[in-house]
């Protein structure tokens, strides 16, 4: 009786979970569908298969510039945020000191602040200082919002890491830096790569901060935003959006696989010696 009831309950839940996943994915799936549709307006029934919207993309110089800018910003952001993330995550997981939680809270704060607040406050300071807006100012803003994500990925990688391995290395005469390079780094390498990918993806997709802090140069989301004003440009935007979706999806899948490998590695090897 209870077993039956339990099965029914989990049956309802499974059905709900299925519907929920469809709700999550459905809107996103319309982008690729209509990017392959020959009609200029996205509506049913579909009028025919075409690749012309994709073929037009490489012939748009403004788009290529935006893609290049996004790449430059994304790579800079992922490296800077991951370096700052490594330092902070290492400090948080390895050391105990007063104010640790408060500092951690401050570093994580951009995660829960409205992005527009972060964007306009940075904009005010930059304009006040008389600095000019450029790709550099976008990088500065993106690093601020990427560090919390990098921290989350890296703290998970650093935690569960057996400290006795490092102590053994120090006892055997390795310097602090040498221990970090030869013992710690190889263990947390997957988490670091995962952090790089996560930060790159966030920067690639981020719009608000880039929109406020950009000068004359556009990143891909800013380019898309500009194109949205013209109804006739919609199919091209859908094609570009599909490519961006695919890139994000691919990068995040790799990041997830690496993150899991990192978790397994620290658990197995760390646990063995504990």
């Amino acid at each position, binding site marked *: 009786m*209870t077993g039956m*009831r339990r099965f029914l*309950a*989990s049956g309802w*839940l499974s059905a*709900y*979970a299925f519907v*929920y*996943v469809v709700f*999550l994915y459905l*809107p*996103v799936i*319309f*982008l690729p569908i*209509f990017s392959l549709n020959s009609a200029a307006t996205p*509506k*049913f*029934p579909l009028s025919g298969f075409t690749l012309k919207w994709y073929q037009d993309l490489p012939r748009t110089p403004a788009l290529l510039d935006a893609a290049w800018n996004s790449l430059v910003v994304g790579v800079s952001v992922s490296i800077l945020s991951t370096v*700052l*993330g490594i*330092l*902070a995550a*290492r*400090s948080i997981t*390895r*050391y*105990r*000191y*007063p104010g*640790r939680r408060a500092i951690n809270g*401050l*570093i994580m*704060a*951009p995660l*829960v602040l*409205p992005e*527009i*607040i*972060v964007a*306009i*406050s940075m904009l*005010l*300071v930059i304009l006040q200082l008389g600095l000019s807006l450029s790709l550099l100012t976008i990088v500065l803003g993106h*690093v*601020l919002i990427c*560090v919390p994500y990098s921290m989350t990925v890296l703290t998970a990688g650093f935690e569960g890491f057996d400290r006795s391995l490092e102590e053994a290395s120090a006892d055997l005469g390795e310097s602090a830096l040498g221990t970090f390079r030869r013992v710690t780094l190889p263990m947390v390498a997957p988490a670091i790569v995962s952090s790089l990918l996560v930060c790159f*993806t966030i920067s690639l*997709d981020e*719009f608000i901060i880039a929109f406020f802090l950009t000068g004359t140069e556009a990143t891909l*989301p800013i380019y*898309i*935003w500009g194109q*949205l004003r013209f109804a006739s440009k919609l199919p091209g935007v*859908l094609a570009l*959006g599909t490519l*961006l*979706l695919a890139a*994000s*999806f691919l990068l995040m899948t790799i990041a997830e696989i690496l993150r*899991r490998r990192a978790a397994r590695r620290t658990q197995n090897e760390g646990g063995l010696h504990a």
Partner: protein
Amino acid sequence: MTAAAEGPPTLGIIRARRNALLLSEPVQGLALISPTFLYALVLLVLPILVVVAHSFWTQNYLTIDRTFTLENYRAALTEPIYRDLLWRSLYISMMVSFFTVVLAYPIAYFISFHGGRHKSLWLFLITIPFWTSYLLRVMSWKVILGYNGVLNSSLLGLGIIDEPSTALLYNSSAVIITLTHAWAAFAILPIFVSLEKIDRTLIEAAKDLGDGPIRSFLRVTLPLSAPGVISAALIVMIPTVGDYVTPKLVGGKDGVMIANAIQAQFGKASNWPLGAALSVTTMLIVTLMAGATVVIIRTAQRLVR
């Protein structure tokens, strides 16, 4: 330090002490975190203080008059346009956080209690759409809800409606739907974490003592997962109140939110102090609302027990 090494022996002791201090755990930890900490201080705390300062100043054509005034706050709180936008933003963010939490809870419960070996796969499946561009997800809702959009053209094709409905897009409901979809994954994670922390023997105990599945859920599982519900509600409520893209793309005239007004002050209207005061007011009110939410959920948690 090398200079000290050549000094008399007493200096050697001092140096040893100083080294001990330098290498002590708190100092090392603080030194390691300082670059990241300073970055957040200079690029987040300092700018926010500058915004707060601006909110008490006045825009004087191209210059800023730095005499203290509360005029911007008077405008932000009493002028009908800003007051309405503030209320609407708070209403929308409250609705969105309510719907995301209510819709997310069963999923988090399902993954935690029935996920079995596939827990992390489920979590991955659910968070993946969240990592795709927010701008693109909002755009896809515009494609769905538009006059010539997916929903209208499907309903027309099926013969359910005779002409496209204009009621779908460009209003606050469209904003609420889009934001609820956009923030779904964010609400699931904290609830899932708090459900995972629940000691399963407590639920067994409740059942052994005669509570049915619904009663044991209401009296044990739900109250114990309240921390997750609280953080899910806040993590959605606070950022959505300042959303700019969704109201701009799918909100139309009736779905404009406070962020659009703030942007206008820093853009076309070029009244930085008013924009700053609107930002500070929004943050203060959403903080109050978040506090109220915490109190309400905690009270409810005590009452059911």
